[in-house]
């Protein structure tokens, strides 16, 4: 397989997975909060030949008789889109700050890089939790979602910023940039036209690394009860229900949200590997 087909395959795979989640409203058989109290922990029903009363629970139900399959799809919305939006935020911040630091240098560079070191001096999950700790605990679901995006994305700008700064530093001295500057190009024009396109490779590979990491961060925070809260599902708070492992032995389908993460991470991993693969092998 060539690098191109590998990238295409990974993208198609990820596209399908995200499609499931985006069209959750269309694909999910039940609303995510609809309770069938008479069927708690009902095992997965076969698609064909379901007995009366004829509810089909593809992945069984949870303690309140809510359809796990529907909740999985809706929960994926929260988890995957937290990852995507937070990665977008991180990269946007990293791009802005990294470019500014690398291009202008001087005190701005020193300030940003020292500040970055402060952020990097903390273990990542502890930093996330500590930031979360200092913010209000009881908030609405929508607030929680955007708060998660802001925290995860806002905390993660340092690594992309450092990488982008490195690219910009070397790009600034390239011949064509110096030539354009000689012709009187303004800083804004130089950055937009000549510097930013060079950072594209780093930005893309960073995106494939950050998105899965941030999906896991959302899952961890919601799992710990610091993220999106019931009744809105997320893969994290669904897994928290599965934490009663004594019950889990009989209700293995409660593990579904954890298993659903695996193909998503695998897709991003394949994409990252394909992107990093060198086009031509050095001799």
């Amino acid at each position, binding site marked *: 397989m060539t690098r191109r087909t590998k990238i295409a395959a990974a993208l198609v795979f990820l596209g399908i997975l995200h499609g499931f989640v985006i069209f959750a409203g269309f694909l999910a058989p039940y609303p995510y909060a609809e309770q069938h109290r008479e069927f708690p922990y009902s095992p997965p029903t076969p698609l064909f030949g379901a007995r009366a009363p004829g509810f089909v629970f593809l992945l069984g139900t949870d303690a309140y008789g809510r359809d796990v399959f529907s909740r999985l799809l809706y929960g994926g919305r929260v988890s995957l889109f937290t990852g995507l939006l937070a990665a977008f935020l991180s990269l946007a911040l990293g791009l802005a700050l990294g470019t500014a630091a690398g291009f202008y240098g001087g005190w701005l560079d020193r300030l940003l890089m020292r500040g970055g070191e402060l952020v990097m001096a903390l273990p990542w*999950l502890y930093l996330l939790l500590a930031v979360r*700790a200092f913010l209000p605990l009881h908030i609405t679901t929508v607030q929680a979602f955007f708060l998660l995006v802001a925290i995860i994305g806002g905390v993660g700008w340092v690594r992309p910023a450092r990488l982008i700064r490195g690219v910009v530093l070397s790009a600034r001295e390239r011949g064509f940039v110096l030539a354009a500057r000689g012709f009187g190009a303004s800083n804004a024009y130089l950055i937009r036209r000549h510097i930013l396109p060079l950072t594209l490779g780093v930005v893309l590979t960073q995106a494939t690394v950050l998105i899965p990491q941030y999906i*896991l961060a959302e899952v961890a925070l919601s799992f710990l*009860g*610091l993220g999106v809260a019931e009744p809105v599902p997320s893969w994290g708070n669904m897994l928290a229900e599965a*934490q009663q492992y*004594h019950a*889990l032995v009989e209700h293995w389908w409660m593990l579904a949200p954890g298993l659903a993460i695996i193909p998503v991470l695998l897709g991003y991993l394949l994409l990252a590997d394909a992107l990093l693969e060198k086009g031509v092998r050095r001799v």
Partner: protein
Amino acid sequence: MRYIARRLLHGLLLLVGVSVLSFLFAELAPGDYFSELRNDPRVLPETVAALRAQYGLDRPLPVRYAAWVASVLRGDFGYSLAYNSPVGPLLWGRVRATLLLTGTATFLAWLIALPLGIWNATARGTWFDSVSRVVLSFLLAVPDLLLAIVFLMLAVETGYFPTGGMVSPGSERVEDVAWHLALPVAVLVLGMLPTLVRHVRASMAEVIDSPFALSARAQGIPRQRLLFRHLLPAAANPLISLAGFSLGTLLSASLLIEVVMGWPGLGPLFLEAIMARDFAVVLAVVILSASFLVAGNLLADILLYRMDPRIRMK
């Protein structure tokens, strides 16, 4: 020597910066330990104010920071309002438990990753390398959280392993702790292994492909000697940095697993402190984990400086 001193100073400044920032951030945070009390109609506002005054929360920020630094230097790490005691004594037992868990896991993970990575790098293109790459990639995509839950589920089902905690009630024996240690360590090792092996394999592969390796092979240097005396030291730099990072995350790597598996380490303490808005404990854990990370990186830098003449020349 001057290099080491400079790095030490740098690390110290970094920690001071982290502590000042966290202190400021805690100050800006809405609500403190007593804010729940304020919602209680039975409690007079004056009572809350008196409580705050009693614990010194009404003093200006610089004064409180100075008091906090003094208490860190005494080893108290501030005063926990939820536990009504200095934080230090609460921490040490937890730190020991966490270090026991992560130290064992990190040691085992490196013990497996080094030979496996080197072997994979020398056997590139063979089925062994392909299989182990596929398995490790898959492992990388399995969240630790899921692994922990599945392992606990198996423990319940088979009954061979305890389902949480560090010791059985009333037992002080080493075997008992080891028995409790087995599952969390297994989860941690499986979580660390893929990244470590990938790094070892990548850095070894790069050296194996280099011209000096080819010429050394042409000289007829035996394979074992070539691998361990010539190639491994050349590939060591990124691995030393990684090992420093490994050491640095000793306190923080196991947070989720401790919470899920009921290991009485720093993780559960930290989480409870967050829920209770007990900022003194949060702050102490943050500073402690940051100092570990800074120290780990520092150690790696110093080791690199000692081992690699190229860095010393700069």
